[in-house]
């Protein structure tokens, strides 16, 4: 018996050094459902295999604002449970204080491969707090079959969209489809309305609510005209219900074949082309219309990035995982397999990527010219700014407020909140 015990203790002693040099475990929170989770799992495990480390995938709420709430509570408590965070484009301003600077870990020439607007958005007080992973911007979906049938072409201005939508809507209703509506978008008083409305305002040249220098610039005639134009759609080419639609509500109407136009994020493309989709093969995507002849096409910048917690006990390994997941090879794989829009600009000219996503070519301009929400300049107060803005817009759209009055009130309110632009 003593021999057995001796052998066991010897084996234990010999194995201790190996255990001491065991792999680091990096915990990453990156999406919770479907394709996104699967692709992140594959990518993370590939990195683990390559580096000899381990990864643990942490799931959480599916709703973005719920995720933010959970992250804020964890980070405020200084928790080290999660090393890598998948963060929305508007969160660097809110959460940036909790993340490490990634510049020491990722060289400049790599960073410069990504869209400059996103890198700029993710740089807070000189620190690169998050690496761009995949991007988003509002785009216009339309029924190419219906436009062709009624002799219309894709609109380039909001006025053209309204006119075309009216023509096709009326014709289709006359032909028997009572449910047909011209244009669906997202006007529920949530972050999604901030995105939609910012597109209208910016496309008319009405600014981005708060300028880069911190001054509030929302009260101007072009912004008022933008909101007035959007309000004219509700109840005419758009159903009253858009005032309670989020992305999935609008997509439900469009994908069931009952809408001519839809504003949404690029994710809706892959779903509209699924085998069981009623509109498969009948949809095309273009940039959102301009606000008049002298306006511009503008999609609100969205998308997700990867950040490393400063409370992490494995910062170097976590930064390496972030570098790998945001690399050109990995972004290309995700673009082909899941239609996730790369943040590395050269991939929009890649033949294999374009074969899998024909409309990506037109997205390069969209992402290059996307308008960012004023989340960085307003920092922790962005949620309030966004809420006040979208409530003002919601009032205008529902007819309970006039654009000029609402924007004047909003200007006053935000200016008071801004502490003379210092936020």
């Amino acid at each position: 018996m003593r021999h057995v015990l001796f052998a066991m203790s010897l084996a234990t002693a010999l194995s201790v050094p190996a255990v001491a040099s065991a792999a680091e475990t990096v915990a990453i929170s990156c999406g919770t459902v479907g394709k996104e989770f699967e692709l992140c799992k594959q990518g993370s495990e590939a990195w683990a295999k390559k580096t000899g480390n381990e990864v643990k995938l942490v799931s959480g709420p599916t709703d973005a604002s719920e995720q933010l709430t959970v992250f804020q509570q964890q980070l405020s408590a200084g928790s080290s449970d999660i090393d890598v965070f998948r963060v929305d484009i508007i969160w660097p301003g809110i959460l940036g204080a909790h993340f490490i600077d990634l510049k020491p870990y990722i060289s400049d020439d790599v960073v410069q491969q990504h869209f400059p607007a996103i890198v700029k958005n993710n740089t807070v007080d000189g620190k690169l707090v998050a690496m761009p992973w995949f991007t988003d911007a509002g785009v216009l979906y339309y029924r190419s079959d219906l436009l062709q049938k009624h002799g219309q072409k894709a609109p380039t201005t909001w006025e053209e969209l309204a006119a075309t939508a009216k023509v096709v809507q009326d014709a289709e209703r006359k032909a028997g489809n009572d449910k047909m509506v011209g244009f669906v978008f997202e006007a529920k008083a949530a972050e999604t309305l901030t995105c939609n409305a910012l597109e209208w305002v910016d496309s008319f040249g009405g600014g981005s609510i708060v300028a880069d220098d911190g001054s509030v610039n929302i009260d101007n005639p072009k912004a008022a005209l933008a909101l007035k134009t959007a309000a004219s759609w509700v109840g005419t080419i758009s159903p009253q219900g858009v005032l309670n639609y989020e992305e999935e509500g609008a997509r439900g109407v469009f994908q069931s074949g009952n809408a001519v136009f839809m504003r949404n994020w690029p994710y809706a493309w892959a779903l509209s082309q699924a085998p069981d989709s009623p509109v498969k093969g009948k949809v095309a995507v273009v940039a959102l219309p301009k606000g008049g002849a002298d306006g511009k096409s503008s999609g609100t910048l969205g998308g997700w990035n990867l950040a490393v917690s400063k409370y992490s006990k494995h910062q170097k390994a976590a930064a390496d995982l972030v570098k790998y997941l945001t690399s050109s090879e990995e972004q290309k794989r995700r673009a082909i397999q899941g239609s996730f829009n790369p943040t590395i600009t050269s991939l929009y000219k890649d033949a294999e990527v374009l074969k899998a996503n024909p409309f990506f070519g037109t997205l390069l301009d969209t992402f290059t010219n996307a308008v960012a929400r004023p989340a960085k300049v307003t920092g922790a107060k962005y949620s309030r700014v966004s809420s006040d803005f979208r409530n003002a817009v919601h009032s205008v759209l529902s007819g309970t407020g006039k654009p000029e009055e609402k924007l004047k009130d909003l200007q006053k309110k935000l200016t008071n909140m801004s502490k003379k632009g210092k936020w």
Partner: protein
Amino acid sequence: MTGSASPAPDSSAAPPPAPGSQLARERVRAAWLFLLPTLVVLAAVAGWPLFRTFWFAFTNASLADPAPPEFVGLENFVTVWGDSDWWRSVRNTFLFTGVSVTLETVLGMIIALTLNTRFRGRAILRAAVLVPWAIPTVVSAKMWGWMFNDVYGVINEMLLSAGFISGPIAWTVDPQLSMVAIIAVDVWKTTPFMTLLLLAALQILPEELYEAAKLDGANPVMVFFRITLPLIRGPMMVAIIFRVLDALRVFDLFYVLTSNSSESMSMAVYARQQMFEFQDLGLGAAAASLLFGLIALFTILYMALARDSVAQEPA
């Protein structure tokens, strides 16, 4: 009142212990000892969070700021008090509470009276009535949200095909219409709760009173208002107070069903927005404390009135 004479003392029963005696004190002490675990649990899961909420209400605590919170006195309460969004949410919550509790009580009474009569299948129907109450509120809200959808909801489909409306209605969009929708869903969900409480009260009413009323030739309406209603007023008031307290805390129906603009928020939705969406723990705690204060005020008012009415009961 010939039957009201106190009964002759039963010589076989032990007399209750005299007040202040050793035995009485031991009984009181034993009662408290048995209650102690419950009180400890209540303090841990309800008392402590409530205390923390009150404490945060006087600070500038924020989810966005890692620094420890600082005491700011009544600043948060002043901010909430001056916010028109808060007062709109108060108005929304009280309107919702008043209308929904009234409808639930009336409908609950009607259904309870029906279930109280003897007929075949009564037991099954009583069980079936509980279904809406058993479904979690967020699930009900989501389900009804789909039914209320203006383009593909079944409610518009039915109303359109029956010719009651000429065009689809966006029920959950207009602040007035969404209030109607929310009240309708809550009435659908919570009427069974009122029904069961009222049914339990009806079950214990003595048959003799109704037989006597029948002999005297009283009609059913008179029987209800003169006999049934007075006798179950106590239990009914308890049910109403429970329901009012719960309705004032309403969150899920407003949060899931409406467009969440500042025009269609309840007090709880407002508090949550301040606390989590705006990361302002202090302000959110102040709103939550005011919400608690309103509920407590209502409770105290009710208890005072209840005590008065009990005291006026004829001896």
